[in-house]
């Protein structure tokens, strides 16, 4: 095999970060789920009551758990789960956020290298992708309930 068949520096860097994020997210997910399902941590919605809510549309589900358990002024959407990390069910959002967020880190890290190699088009695309994914992650974009 010649040198031509090797992955580029950016590609290998991207792969390394993605791999670390994947292992961190999946490992943490197993731990947080065990803490939740084994009852080691308390949960907002008791495990034996969750089946009552999972057949409802997401908006109705949020209204129900807010009415029955949280009693907040607003529904628990966006990053409000961060306030509930002391509870097993919402602690499980943390590994999901890591798995969903690692791609943003990958794009941010490869951008300087792309600029350094004067690969401007790809560098601008990397910035645009990071901005779009950050916008999606921000919680600014919300869907209307049905």
């Amino acid at each position, binding site marked *: 095999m010649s040198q031509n068949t090797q992955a580029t520096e950016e590609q290998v860097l991207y792969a390394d970060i993605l791999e670390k994020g994947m292992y961190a997210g999946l490992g943490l997910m197993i731990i947080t789920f065990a803490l939740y399902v084994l009852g080691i941590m308390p949960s907002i919605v008791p495990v034996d009551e969750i*089946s009552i809510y999972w057949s409802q*549309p997401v908006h109705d589900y949020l209204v129900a758990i807010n009415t029955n358990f949280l009693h907040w002024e607003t529904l628990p959407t966006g990053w409000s789960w961060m306030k509930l990390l002391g509870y097993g069910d919402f602690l499980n959002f943390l590994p999901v956020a890591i798995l969903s967020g690692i791609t943003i880190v990958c794009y941010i890290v490869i951008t300087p290298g792309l600029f350094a190699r004067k690969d401007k088009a790809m560098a601008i695309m990397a910035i645009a992708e990071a901005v779009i994914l950050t916008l*999606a992650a921000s919680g600014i974009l919300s869907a209307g309930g049905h």
Partner: protein
Amino acid sequence: MLGNIKGKAGILFVALMCAIMLSPVWALASEVVTMDQIPAAGDPGWWKWPVILLFVTFVMGIIAVLGGVGGGVLFVPIIGGFFPFHLDFVRGAGLLVALCGALAAGPGLLKANLASLRLAMPVALIASTMAIVGAMVGLALPTHIVQLALGGTILGIVAIMLSAKKSTVPHVPQADALSTALRITGVFYEPTTKEEINWKIHRTIPGLLSFIIIGFMAGMFGLGAGWANVPVLNLMMGAPLKISVATSKFLLSITDTSAAWIYLNNGAMIPMMVVPSLIGIMLGSFVGVRLLKVAKPTFIRWMVIAILLFAGLKAVQKGLSTMGINLF
């Protein structure tokens, strides 16, 4: 001899699992959705559905590997059609199933230079943006409309699976101006022929435009989108099949990420559904890779088509029945 017996046992196992999943008994689960559930007290049998989910997704993981499809495309129609979970949560979990599969495979494919970051970047920019729009539309639309559209899409995927051709190394006479400007090209080593294959792409603009629709559907239905990515990258844009399959798999890690954030931020994640599904699919995939050596791919592929056809019809039927139209 032993291998032959193992092979037959493997096929028999998968066939049995499919027969169980296709059985009308599973249809009873969907009726739970329409029943009024009064939260008077905790349900002592709460653990049954996560355990069944774990088992079914395990079988699904095996079938997905053997049938050459992503987990998401099986997960959403089957779990959405036959389990009591609302479609909002099923789509959120489906995106995470597809995302985790892509995250698990992506680093290896990138390092082996089979997935191309340069090919994926412009495609991902369009697909992930549209996946956000699709996710928002999907969460805003009435469930029966999404269910009907999902059923139609699944039946469309069946049609694609039945008709789509593949080209190992498509003939690309000349790279187009855009792909040349973006330097979307590469070299990979093909061990079967012991050749280094130079590849380039053409029809970049129509290819990129296709990802407007693909990204939208991935976000709206939580299906993943390998079933559409590969034909566009391979047949339309002219990337070699191996590069197309690998880049498609990696691409899902970006497309599904954007849509997953929308579902997460809108509260459409229930860990009791998500985690058993991920564990089941991943364990099933490990077993599927081992069975791959002995299973007959053609038989499995027909079985996947049959399952999708049944699940697609079920989704259409559920959507129509909500509108008061009963087909069966």
